[in-house]
């Protein structure tokens, strides 16, 4: 199914957003389908927020946080690490492909890695139907 | 310390779902559905679940109020009825019975609604009577 998927990435202020910024300043090309939203910590990304994002038309949601031990808020990313897999199972049981939601740890120096994740994820979501068809 | 459930019927629509009012120490604190009820089958709609909320609500009127110079003041039932009868009579005199209208409510009982329409038609002399559910 060929279409341009809309990806929303929630990136945390202290690690993954600077990582994304580094990809930009290094002029690394990555998929333009992504809309990056900066949040204070990946632990702030609640299931309600992700579900609303899907509801508003996102075909895929990326949640990016700090590696364990690096979180500015000590254990915010621990919450994310538990919450996202559970939400993926909930989506799977309800009939929404869990591949639409992905959690990755990106540090402030991993610009290259950020670009790679976005590209891979865009391709994964491109294989799936647009969200508006699923929710219709 | 006293807790009991009082069986009643939901006042809101014509379905007539069974409802338990939860009474704790003399105050109504919530509602419960009636399991095994032939009509509501143990479920309630959103109005039924909140049917208790107006009972002890601070905004609830507890005495008649008469507006004077743009402000409401409390009045006795007698004074209120005198004013109503006065005004209805004078308006009916001056503008005819069809200048009056009566609006009833789905929360009233069938008997109350019957009385009200009888009053409107026989006493006030007009057919202008309707019901909030038709709005």
């Amino acid at each position: 199914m060929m279409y341009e998927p809309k990806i929303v990435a929630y990136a945390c202020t202290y690690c993954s957003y600077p990582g994304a910024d580094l990809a930009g300043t290094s002029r690394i090309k990555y998929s333009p389908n992504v809309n990056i939203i900066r949040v204070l910590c990946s632990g702030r990304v609640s299931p309600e927020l992700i579900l609303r994002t899907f509801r508003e038309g996102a075909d895929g949601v990326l949640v990016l946080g700090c590696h364990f031990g690096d979180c500015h808020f000590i254990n915010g990313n621990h919450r994310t690490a538990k919450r996202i897999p559970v939400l993926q199972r909930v989506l799977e049981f309800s009939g929404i492909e869990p591949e639409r939601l992905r959690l990755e740890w990106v540090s402030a120096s991993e610009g290259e890695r950020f670009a790679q994740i976005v590209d891979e994820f865009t391709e994964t979501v491109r294989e799936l139907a647009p969200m508006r068809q699923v929710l219709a | 310390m006293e807790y009991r459930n009082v069986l009643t019927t939901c006042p809101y629509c014509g379905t007539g779902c069974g409802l338990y009012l939860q009474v704790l120490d003399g105050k109504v604190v919530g509602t419960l559905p009636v399991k095994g009820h032939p009509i509501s089958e143990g479920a309630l709609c959103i109005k039924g679940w909140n049917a208790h909320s107006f009972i002890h609500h601070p905004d609830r009127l507890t005495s008649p109020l008469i507006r004077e110079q743009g402000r409401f003041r409390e009045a006795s039932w007698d004074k209120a009825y005198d004013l109503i009868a006065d005004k209805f009579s004078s308006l009916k005199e001056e503008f005819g019975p069809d200048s009056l209208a009566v609006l009833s409510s789905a929360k009233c009982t069938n008997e109350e609604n019957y009385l009200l329409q009888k009053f409107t038609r026989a006493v006030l002399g007009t057919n202008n009577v309707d019901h909030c559910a038709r709005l």
Partner: protein
Amino acid sequence: MNRLEALRDLIEEALDEVDGVVGLRSSSGYVAPHLFREREELHQLAVSPKYALPTTLRLIQTAHPEAKLGIVCRGCEERGLIEMAKRNQINLDHIAVIGLACTAEEAEECRCAKPYPSVLVDSHVGERVEPVADKLAEELRQKGVPERLDFWLSQFNKCIKCYGCRNACPQCFCPECTLEEELWVERGRVPPPFPSFHLIRAMHTVGKCVGCRECELSCPAHIPLTTLYTLIRQEVGEMFGYEPGVALEDEPPLVLPMEVES
């Protein structure tokens, strides 16, 4: 002696020690939760249909924190009490728990994984029966993702947004409920848009749902909510080794930081 008579005897005994016992009372042909304070009221005692008695207990205890109370508890209600106690919603210190085992028919209807209490009980009535598997959950596990979507969409499209599932749930106690926030659940739309309402609720039951089925029983549209929550509960059990309602010392996984080797 049947369950009802045995229960009546136990409650009579309990009334010597406690100020009141929360149980079911039959009156005017219908059954409702009740706080029995005097022996004379016990002729109206009933055992079914089941209600979420822990919710009633919490209501009374919040108004009278010092009172010594008793409660008639089925398996699911005991699990509910344990989860409430973990979250400081109820104080189990002054509570006498009188266990009531469900019959085979009741266990079958509820697809119950453990139709009898065993952890908190001070005394017990009724014979323990075998747990029953949730057939619908097993069927759904076999289906692929698009078929599951069809199934759940057809179910959730019946929803009239009565909030009965949330109101009836013994574990739902938040004074400000996420499901009432306009930011997450659009106002004025019935059925509420998929996936918001129901999947938010499903996520919020993680670590809390004990499978008491009150949500399903109070759903006017007969949506098999407990099946969805059971599937999630089984997954969470595998992922974190955590089962709600089993032991007071178990801590819910989602609120804890992980143990990470540094």
